[in-house]
């Protein structure tokens, strides 16, 4: 091939275009729901407002313009990052999101790490010894994980680890009241307190993070674990692993060289899906732990009948989800020559 960089570039562009289409679809659906099915004016001024005020509002918001114009204006606003104003914080939604994003990011990333370093190895062990103790434990954990509501698990954890055992601080936010936040660099408190070498803040930040992260991860570990287990089992029973055994390759090589690489693509895809799921699940967990992130922001907005912040968080979550998928696609592209050939 004359231009070896061309294929990956084209692939990325094609995937990015797909993602753009998906995001466009998400915007369209939110537009339909909020502007067509719902009436934002009523939400703003209430049902009792007189005709004059209503008409005035409708004109102000551009709701008397043709539909396609409203749609295009909406898209243009979203593209510029104009997600509207919050009616109870009195700030632009984008501004609010920017302030609260690090909290959610910290929580979701930690949960993701727990899933990757907990769920995947457990799945591997469960596949390696299908009748062993780890496999049984994994099975048990999966059963519980898929049927225990995460917010309830969070409450149970609070009861045992805060109220009974005093292992972790009160489930109120990200830091204890008495502790000053480290200077904001990344917005991730654990990282920031590390950078500031503030051990007290670090201990408090980690202490506050553990229970919500575990709660959030617990619901998604089963899916990761099961996918890892079943794909690995399939691969170990495959013809090419039999070939490797038939040619005297040692077990270490078979597992860590031949089998592992084949597990990567399905597992990374499931992890991307999990990421999207976590962005949603975080709403409940943040509510339980009073974690000042995007989920709690959306819940507060809902209690104030303020839909624009919620739509903003929806759009942002969709964006993150799409980006996670893009990363998964790129990894698959790098690992699997069959995808490269397409």
């Amino acid at each position: 091939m004359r231009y070896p960089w061309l294929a990956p570039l084209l692939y990325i562009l094609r995937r990015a275009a797909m993602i753009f289409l998906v995001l466009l679809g998400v915007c369209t659906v939110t537009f339909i729901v909020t502007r067509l099915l719902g009436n934002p004016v009523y939400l703003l001024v209430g049902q009792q407002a007189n005709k004059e005020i209503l008409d005035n509002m409708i004109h102000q918001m551009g709701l008397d313009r043709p539909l396609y114009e409203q749609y295009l204006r909406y898209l243009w606003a979203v593209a510029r990052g104009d997600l509207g104003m919050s009616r109870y914080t009195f700030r632009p939604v984008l501004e609010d999101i920017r302030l609260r994003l690090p909290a959610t990011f910290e929580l979701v990333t930690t949960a993701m790490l727990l899933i990757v370093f907990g769920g995947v190895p457990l799945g591997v062990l469960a596949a390696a010894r299908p009748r062993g103790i780890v496999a049984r434990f994994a099975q048990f954990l999966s059963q519980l994980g898929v049927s225990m509501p995460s917010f309830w698990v969070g409450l149970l954890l609070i009861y045992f680890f805060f109220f009974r055992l005093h292992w972790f601080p009160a489930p109120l936010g990200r830091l204890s009241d008495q502790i000053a936040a480290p200077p904001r660099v990344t917005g991730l408190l654990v990282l920031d307190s590390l950078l500031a070498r503030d051990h007290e803040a670090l201990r408090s930040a980690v202490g506050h993070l553990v229970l919500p992260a575990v709660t959030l991860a617990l619901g998604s570990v089963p899916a990761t674990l099961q996918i890892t287990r079943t794909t690995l089992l399939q691969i170990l029973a495959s013809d090419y692993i039999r070939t490797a055994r038939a040619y005297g390759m040692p077990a270490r090589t078979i597992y860590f060289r031949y089998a592992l690489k084949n597990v990567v693509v399905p597992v990374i895809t499931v992890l991307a899906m999990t990421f999207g799921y976590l962005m949603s699940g975080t709403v409940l967990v943040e509510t339980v732990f009073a974690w000042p992130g995007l989920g709690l922001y959306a819940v507060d907005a809902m209690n104030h009948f303020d839909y624009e912040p919620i739509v903003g968080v929806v759009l942002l979550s969709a964006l993150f989800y799409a980006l996670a998928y893009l990363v998964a696609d790129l990894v698959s592209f790098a690992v699997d020559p069959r995808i490269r050939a397409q």
Partner: protein
Amino acid sequence: MVEAPAIPLRRPRWHTIRRWLFCPPVIILALLLLGAAFAPQLSRYDPLTPSPGEKLQPPSLRHWFGTDPYGMDIFSRVLYATRTDLTVAVLSVLLGIAAGIPLGALAGYLGGWVDEALTRLTEVMQAFPQILFAMAVMAALGNNLVNLVLILAFLNVPVYLKMVRSVTLPLRDSDFVLAARCAGHTTGSLVLRHIIPNTLVPVFSQFSLSCSYAVQMVAGLSFIGLGVKIPHPEWGSMISLGANYIVFGMWWPALFPGLATFLAAFALHDLGQRMRRTILREAEA
């Protein structure tokens, strides 16, 4: 290549029925349903009557599961809540199936741009964080149970659409559909008579799994205040009432409704898994 299976292959039918009737998930579900049906007989308290003198009483012989912050009896409320939660969950899944099957059959059978459009649409829906989406819709359209059911139904459509589509696609070119077409059947009657019956088996095993998930969604959304209003007995909103008291060591207002949610979700999920395994085994044999 089975020629000489003189060995007992199929056990008598009653054995199979008994095995299904007495498996743990079915027993759990039966108990929950019986509790919901005979809630008035089983509990001495009205689920909606507050009793200011008996706030937050721990479980006792008077109040088996204790009382909540309004002094309402939790045992009674858990029983009544089963009606709300299971109805909303099952109804929304059924609606989702009712929309998903025909759409999936159409996508798989017609192919072309219909298929393309529907597939893209499901992709878009997967990109939605489900809980946030439900919040957005209900904030815009109104926070009530009907909307909750409709949203959950909407969220259930893609699974069935995709499932039916993936079963329909290979069927489309199979011999018996070809034969049916040669016999002069139209597209519509083909979809109705041949393709949809063939997709019912996978849909059936998915139904229970979806219900398990829907029960958790209903409870989760009510937990953050969507769907039902506070005194109405519902597991999620009951948990949210108890959530504030957990840090003070009062575990009962949140524990029991959560336990009920967990048991219902567990039983439905386990039942779905069992059905799926059985179907797989039958398919292999």
